[in-house]
C-alpha cells in the first residue's frame, strides 16, 4: 500500500501526455470537438464569405479557386456554410445537453432512489421510446410545435432525457446498496442529503461519460430531421439542410455540396462518441479502484 505520490516539478506537457497515454480515444475525441467548437465560436473570423450570401452567377462551382470547398446550388460558399454549420450543431447539442441534465438527472436520481411509481413511469416511457422510431416521434412533435430552432432543441432535449435518466438511475441503483450509503444513513442523514450529497456526486461520474454520446445523438438527429425536411431549412447553413439540398446535385456530378457538410457531421459525431468512450475509460478504473 502506498500513499499518493506527491507531485513534483514537471514539464507542462506531462499531464496531457499522461492523459493521452491512458486514453488516446479521449484525447482524439476532445481535439475534434474542440476544433469544431472553435470553428463555431470564431466563425465570422474564419469564414471567407457570408454563409448566406448568394453568388448567383457562380452556382455549383467545383472546389478550389475562389470557393475553397466549392459553391452550392444557390451560389453560396460551401466552406463558409460548413463552418457556420458548426454553430447550429453546438447550438443544438449544448442546450439539449443542458435540458438532459436538468430533467434527466433529477428524474434518474429520484427514480433510482425512491423507486415506486416514478420509476415505473420512467421505465415505461423508455419502453415506448425504444419501440417508436425516434424520427417519426421527432417529426410529429416538431411538426406540431412549429419548425423553429427552439422547438427542435426542446424536442431533442426531451427525447434524450429519459435515456440519460436511465443511465443515472442505473448508477444510483448500484450506489444505493453500497456500504457508504448505508453508513450515511446510519450516521443520520435525511433522505435528501443521502441523495444529493452522497449518491449524486458519485452517480454523476458514471453518467458524465454518457453525456457526449447523447450530444452526438442530438447533433445527428437534428441533421436527420433537417435532411428530411423538418425543422431548419435552407438557406440556414445547417449541415442536415445542406446535405438535403446538395443531395439533388450528386446525381449530376456536383458532389461537394453534399459531401463536405456530411463529412463535418460525421466527424463531429465521431468526436463526441470518442470523447464519451474515452471518458468512460478514464473514469472507470480510477473510480472502481478506490482503496487497496
Amino acid at each position, binding site marked *: 500500500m502506498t500513499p499518493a505520490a506527491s507531485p513534483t516539478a514537471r514539464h507542462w506537457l506531462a499531464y496531457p501526455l499522461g492523459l493521452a497515454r491512458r486514453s488516446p480515444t479521449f484525447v482524439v475525441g476532445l481535439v475534434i470537438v474542440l476544433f469544431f467548437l472553435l470553428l463555431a465560436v470564431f466563425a465570422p473570423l474564419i469564414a471567407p464569405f457570408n454563409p448566406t450570401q448568394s453568388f448567383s452567377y457562380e452556382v455549383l462551382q467545383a472546389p478550389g479557386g475562389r470557393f475553397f470547398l466549392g459553391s452550392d446550388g444557390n451560389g453560396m460558399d460551401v466552406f463558409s456554410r460548413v463552418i457556420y454549420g458548426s454553430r447550429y450543431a453546438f447550438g443544438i447539442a449544448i442546450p439539449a445537453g443542458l435540458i438532459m441534465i436538468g430533467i434527466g438527472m433529477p428524474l434518474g436520481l429520484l427514480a433510482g432512489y425512491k423507486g415506486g411509481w416514478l420509476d415505473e413511469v420512467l421505465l415505461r416511457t423508455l419502453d415506448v421510446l425504444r419501440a417508436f422510431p425516434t424520427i417519426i416521434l421527432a417529426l410529429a412533435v416538431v411538426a406540431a410545435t412549429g419548425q423553429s430552432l427552439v422547438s427542435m432543441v426542446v424536442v431533442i432535449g426531451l427525447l434524450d432525457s429519459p435515456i440519460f435518466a436511465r443511465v443515472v438511475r442505473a448508477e444510483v441503483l448500484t450506489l444505493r446498496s453500497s456500504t457508504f450509503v448505508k453508513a450515511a444513513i446510519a450516521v443520520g442523514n*435525511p433522505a435528501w442529503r443521502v441523495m444529493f450529497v452522497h449518491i449524486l456526486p458519485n452517480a454523476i461520474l458514471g453518467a458524465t461519460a454518457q453525456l457526449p454520446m447523447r450530444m452526438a445523438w442530438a447533433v445527428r438527429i437534428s441533421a436527420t430531421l433537417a435532411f428530411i425536411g423538418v425543422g431548419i431549412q435552407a438557406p440556414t447553413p445547417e449541415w442536415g439542410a445542406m446535405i438535403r439540398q446538395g443531395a439533388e446535385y450528386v446525381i449530376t456530378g456536383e458532389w461537394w455540396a453534399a459531401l463536405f457538410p456530411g463529412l463535418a457531421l460525421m466527424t463531429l459525431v465521431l468526436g463526441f462518441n470518442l470523447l464519451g468512450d474515452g471518458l468512460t475509460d478514464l473514469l472507470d478504473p480510477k473510480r472502481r479502484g478506490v482503496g487497496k
Partner: protein
Amino acid sequence: MNRPLIELHDLVKKFPADGGAQVSAVDRVSLSIQAGESVGLVGESGSGKSTLGLLMTRLTPASSGQIIFDGQDITHMSDEQLRRLRSQIQMVFQDPWGALNPRMTVGRSMAEPFKLHTTLTEAQRKQAVHELAERVHLPMESLKRFPHELSGGQLQRVCIARSIASKPRLLVLDEPTSSLDLSVRAGILELLDTIRKETGVALLLISHDLETVELMTQRLLVLYLGKVVERGPTPEIFKNPAHPYTQTLMSAHLPANPKAVLSRLPTVGEMPSPLNLPAGCLFSSRCPLVRSQCQQGFPAFSNLNGGHANAAAHEAACNRVADSSNWLSSLYQKS
C-alpha cells in the same frame, strides 16, 4: 434492576429466496444489552450476525419482533423520528474503504455527524473534528485526504471517529478488524477498548474470530443459522462451551501457538442450506450427540451456572444439557 439500553424481542428477518420461499436470516432472536456493556455476537456464515447488526441500527426493517431502545419501541419508527435517534446508535462496518464516500475528504466525513446532530458553527465543527482525530490517533493532515489515499487501519480509525462523534450510547461493530492487516488490528482493538472505558458506550462486537471476542467482550451470544444457541459471560463460555456447536467452533480455532494442543472434534457434513433446514434443533443434522428428541422443536434454553441473574446466566439451547451429556469429548480442553 436497571433498564437495558437495548432489547430485542423475538426479532425475525426474512428474505425472499428462489422459488418464492422465504429464508429467515434471523429467526426469533432475543437479547438485551445494558449501558456500558461489551457484548459479542459470534457465528459463521449464515448465522445472521451481520443482519442482526443491521436490524439493531434500523438499516433494514424487521419482519417481525420488537426492538426497544431506552424504553422506546423503535421497531416501526418513521424515518424522521429515527434520524434523531441515530445519534445514539452507531455502526462501524467491516470494509473501511467501502464505508466512506469516495468523493468526500475524510475530514468532511468526520464532520458530518456534527453537522447533522448539533448546531455548531463551521469553525466549531472543524475544531471538533480535530479533537476527534487526536482521540483516534489520526494524523491531522489525513483529514484533507480522500479515502483511497489512506491505509486500511487509518480508514477504520476515521470510521470509528465518525461513529463516536455524536456520542452514541451503543456502538455496533461488524467485523471491525477482519479486513485489516494483523499488525493493525491490535491498534484498532485498543482504540475501541479505550473509547469504551472513557465514554461508557456499550459495544456490540460482531465477529467470527474467537480470540478477538474473548479479549473484548464481557458477554457472548453464539448464533447458528439465525438462532441463538448459547449465551452467557464470555469467560464462562470459553471455559465450558456447553452447546455442541460452540464446542465444535472452538475446537476448530487455531491458536497462534504451535505448542497448543488441538483437539479436533468430529462434525458430520457441512452447514445445511437455509432453504432446507433440519426440523427441531438446527444443528441436529450435524450433531454427533443428536437424539430423536432433538428433531421435535427447537430446544429450550437450559441453564448451566445455577440460576444466576439474567445477564450473568450461562445458557445453551441443547436438550442434552439437562443430563450433562452435552460434552462432545470428555477430553475436551481449552487450548
